[in-house]
């Protein structure tokens, strides 16, 4: 079994099936590259679904109830980032494109040569540059490990939250998340299917925990926020836009800001 509970054979078979479409067509690879790195393609429809769920006039749930769910959903995203980061640092699972190179696994105090994973590289876009950079040894700090997928955790939590608020918008967000945002990450060799499954489970669990935590009277302050948002629709839309943009970037700006602050603190005399 893999770390996510997905059998290793199924994990590999799913990866090979999705990665098998890569490298055959420059046009298809370009679309995959867009879905991987272009924020509008990767996350635009999910963000649009969020706004639809927030502002829709005709929906099964009344607007205040929907907005309360959506605010709790945004809060869950704040907790997901440190959780997935901590797990990825404590569970070793090299990215598929890394396992395409000659690798050695540390087992019982010795290094054992590992067989290589068959891997097709996308023909264009930043992912190709990333693989080439890795072969030259230029890697980011967290570029080697992959479990669980923070994109899966973020986007599944966001899409499920939208679905809880508004079924129609949520169905579109979920479909886009699974078929475009996440499937392309496996196809391009960024993630194993098991990483996606684990990330999605973490996202769903965190969303459920926050929705339960703020259910009923415990979430009265959310109702107050919703009323405030109703009184100030312009600033609310602006803030939601910024929050969703940051979520689409899996909190990279927040992370960079924290790193900058830590670096500046480290330079203080």
């Amino acid at each position, binding site marked *: *079994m893999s770390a996510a509970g997905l059998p290793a054979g199924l994990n*590999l078979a799913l990866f090979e099936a999705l990665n098998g479409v890569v490298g055959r067509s420059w046009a298809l690879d370009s679309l995959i590259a867009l879905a991987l790195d272009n924020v509008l393609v990767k996350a635009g429809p999910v963000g649009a679904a969020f706004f639809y769920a927030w502002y829709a006039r005709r929906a099964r749930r009344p607007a205040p109830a929907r907005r309360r769910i959506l605010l709790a959903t945004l809060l869950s995203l704040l907790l997901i980032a440190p959780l997935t980061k901590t797990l990825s640092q404590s569970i070793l699972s090299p990215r598929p494109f890394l396992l395409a190179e000659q690798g050695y696994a540390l087992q019982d105090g010795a290094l054992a040569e590992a067989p290589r994973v068959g891997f097709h590289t996308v023909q264009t876009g930043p992912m190709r540059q990333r693989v080439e950079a890795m072969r030259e040894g230029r890697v980011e700090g967290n570029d*080697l490990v992959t479990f669980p997928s923070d994109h899966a955790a973020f986007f599944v939590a966001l899409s499920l939250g939208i679905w809880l608020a508004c079924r129609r918008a949520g169905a579109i967000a979920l479909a886009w998340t699974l078929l475009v945002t996440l499937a392309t990450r496996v196809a391009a060799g960024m993630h194993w299917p098991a990483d996606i499954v684990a990330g999605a489970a973490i996202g769903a669990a965190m969303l459920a925990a926050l929705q339960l935590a703020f259910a009923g009277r415990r979430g009265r302050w959310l109702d107050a926020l919703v009323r405030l948002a109703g009184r100030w629709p312009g600033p609310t839309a602006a803030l939601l836009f910024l929050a969703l943009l940051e979520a689409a970037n899996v909190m990279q700006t927040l992370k960079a800001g924290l790193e900058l602050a830590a670096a500046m603190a480290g330079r203080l005399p």
Partner: protein
Amino acid sequence: MRRLALLMALGALAACGGGDGWVTVLDPSYRPEILGGEADGFAAPDGLLWHDGALYMADEGGSAVRVWRPGGPVRTLAGADAGFESPEDLARDSAGNLYVTDDDAGGVRRIDARGRVTLLAGDVASTEAIAIAPDGTLLVGDQAGRRILLVAPDGRVRVLVGAGAGIAKPESFAFDGRGNLYIADNRDDVLYLLTPEGRLHRPVAGRRGFAPESIVHAGGALFITDSRHGALYRYSPEDGLGAIALFAGDLANVQGVAADAEGNLYLSVQADLEGGRGYVLRLTRRR
């Protein structure tokens, strides 16, 4: 059969979590192996030095200086009772004295051939890099003062490169065959080059994903560890910077590097500095 092996490897990797590590070798002329871990007495070493068939180690996690010869046990040359707290790096002169820096205890400790320990430059609060120049001069990196110091045999200190030069943290030194001194600065992530004429250059600077930790010059090239990104690089002015291997999991925190006469590389890895847990790896050069 290959697929079965791949499945088993993936299953083992996924099932083990936390405690294991991974090495990706990008230069196929090297093959990595573990020489030993804390159970073999290697603890959590930082600086390494290969000399005359022996590997000397500044064991940062174990507050000691140790030596290992292939086939033999790890021996302790000096420990906390000699004043070592966090030994960083070491160098050896032609008389057989070993000089060791310490970023917590400060100063430079000289271990002579009979094992006696003498403190030099004791007023330098935190020392990092160390090297012996071709003329026998001892050079030391002063972390707090952001300087490179010359330490005379009697312990007197003179500034070679002052704080105004801009070196943020002189972490490691290596001389090439022409008298140039390479300096690894792992705070500003710059590889400096100080020429014999005193000119300071920056051969590698501002490169994303590059933070030099320890350096050694061997066989016409500079070998560089990067603990922040888990990487081992080779650099030469002719070929530039290229990666030899990447490290992940328990092996990601690669620290010291040394080279033997056959071109084999030795790396120290600190898996858990506080817990005194680490490894020493050898990357054997294939012929």
